[in-house]
């Protein structure tokens, strides 16, 4: 009986394959209307001048307009720094609760907290950091009272590069924890034992086996963190009121009004972001596939 049902299924698949695509048509329609049409429209518009004629000028201008170049540079800098910092701290945390021998409950505490923190972004996160490291923030006052150190006097500014990076870290390293914890679980106990058995020290085990095995996951996750920071808008906007010149803020300003005096340049800027994000995602997927193949 089950066999019949099964063969009936197989028959259908081979006989009228194209009909089966009807079942996913609503999904594709949704994707076209609300993902692809908007993206393609921006893409097409970025090749149009003010009169609607085809031009490469907008794309070329991305690379010549200092205002735009600086925005990209700052975005890339913040994303790279927080991706790296988040990756390192996140990896060490994931390490400590997986193979680092911490008691079991610590793991579920950390994972839950990471789930919260990686989703706790935008306005509330910005306000939380104002309460912490703003001019009258908890830690700012603490440093002043206890160590007599005014962190703002010594160059720190929550509303600049360093501050924004610290804020981004709040959702960056938990994301790393969430990605790395399963990857570290994938390290088999037997690999460590086999390497010890063959005479390797703990250090040699990490250098020759554990890190190489984890490397694609680590790199992939770092790239994902980069994209995560690169596309962020709300946190930066809420923290600085739009006064920090990262790409997303500039794109936002362009949506509000034609601040570049050339709409096409705005679309090109948006496309530049999509391009960078697409490369990050492709890199991530490629590295992920490599790891899965190894750990199959």
């Amino acid at each position, binding site marked *: 009986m089950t066999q019949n049902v099964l063969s009936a299924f197989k028959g259908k698949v081979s006989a009228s394959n194209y009909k089966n695509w009807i079942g996913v048509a609503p999904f594709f329609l949704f994707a076209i209307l609300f993902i692809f049409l908007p993206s393609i429209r921006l893409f097409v518009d970025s090749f149009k001048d003010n009169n609607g004629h085809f031009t490469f000028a907008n794309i070329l201008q991305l690379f010549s307009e200092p205002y735009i170049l600086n925005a990209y540079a700052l975005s890339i800098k913040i994303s790279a720094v927080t991706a790296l910092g988040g990756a390192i701290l996140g990896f060490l945390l994931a390490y400590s609760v997986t193979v680092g021998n911490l008691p079991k409950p610590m793991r579920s505490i950390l994972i839950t907290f990471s*789930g919260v923190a990686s989703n706790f972004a935008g306005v509330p996160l910005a306000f*939380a950091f104002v309460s912490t490291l703003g001019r009258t923030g908890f830690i700012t006052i603490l440093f002043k009272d206890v160590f007599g150190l005014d962190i703002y006097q010594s160059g720190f500014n929550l509303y600049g590069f360093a501050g924004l990076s610290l804020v981004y*870290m709040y959702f960056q390293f938990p994301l790393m924890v*969430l990605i790395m914890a399963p990857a570290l679980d994938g390290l088999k106990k037997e690999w460590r034992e086999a390497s010890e058995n063959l005479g390797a020290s*703990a250090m040699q085990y990490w250098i020759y086996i554990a890190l190489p095995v984890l490397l694609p996951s680590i790199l992939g996750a770092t790239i994902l963190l980069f994209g995560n920071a690169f596309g962020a808008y709300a946190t930066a906007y809420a923290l600085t009121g739009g006064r920090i010149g990262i790409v997303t803020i500039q794109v936002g300003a362009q949506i509000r009004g034609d601040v570049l005096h050339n709409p096409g340049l705005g679309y090109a800027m948006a496309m530049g972001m999509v391009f960078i994000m697409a490369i990050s995602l492709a890199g991530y997927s490629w590295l992920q596939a490599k790891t899965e193949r190894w750990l199959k």
Partner: protein
Amino acid sequence: MNLSARLRNIPFWSWIWFILGALYFVLPLYATLDFSLRMERGVVGFKAYQSSFEDPEFLRTFGYSALIAVVTILASALLTIPTAYWIRLKLPQARRIVEFITLMPFVVPAIILVFGLIRIYSAPLTIPFTDIVLMPALTTFKFGTNILVVAGYMVLGLPYMYRSVDTGMRTVGVHTLTEAAQSLGANWYVIITQVILPNLRSALLSGALLTFAIVIGEVVLASFLGVPAFGPYLFLLGQHRAFEPAALSFTTFLMTWAAMGIIQLVTGGQGQASGAH
């Protein structure tokens, strides 16, 4: 027992990293809570909370965001469940392309998405090279804007919703379950309502809660499409007040925590990766 073996049993560095991470997590939250309790000079109290919750604008915007979140979750479930089920059952070759689409929000972040949505839907949507109108300009009327907001949130939540549902279907083995139900003579209605959906409960719940967590405080789509949502309200409040925003931020955190805690409980400890803020 030799020294290195003994050292391995005391996870000194593990504790250091863990405490460092814990401080990073907790300090901003503690600072926010501490600040939010000091609205009245010299008194620790819930005045800021009381004052925020009593603001009719808060109730209106929060209610709006919650309603939009529920509609988004329902619409998203309605879109992803049949799609994922159909692909598992009849169209495995579509898996890759659909998974690729669900990852699009990582490539097209919210700020770009809303840019494109406004470009497309601020004018009537016509069939290319003709004047036949498929859709009126959605941004020009309230209901149309709400449709855009929900659709945008569905896109942002797609990675979580689709992955939760699809992973749920894989773990319960919907293909086999369906065949077993069919062999016992069940019709499609019975199969879906009594076999498939009950088994997807925890997967659906975690997808729904993640979507809720994303929608409730979302700012980008809401502010650029000009809807009266909680995120823009909180942002504006932050421009004029000091203590109330802290109180509401802490409340938002607690809600996110509750959502993640429930997910943790129902999925038995598998974390959910996130991204794209």
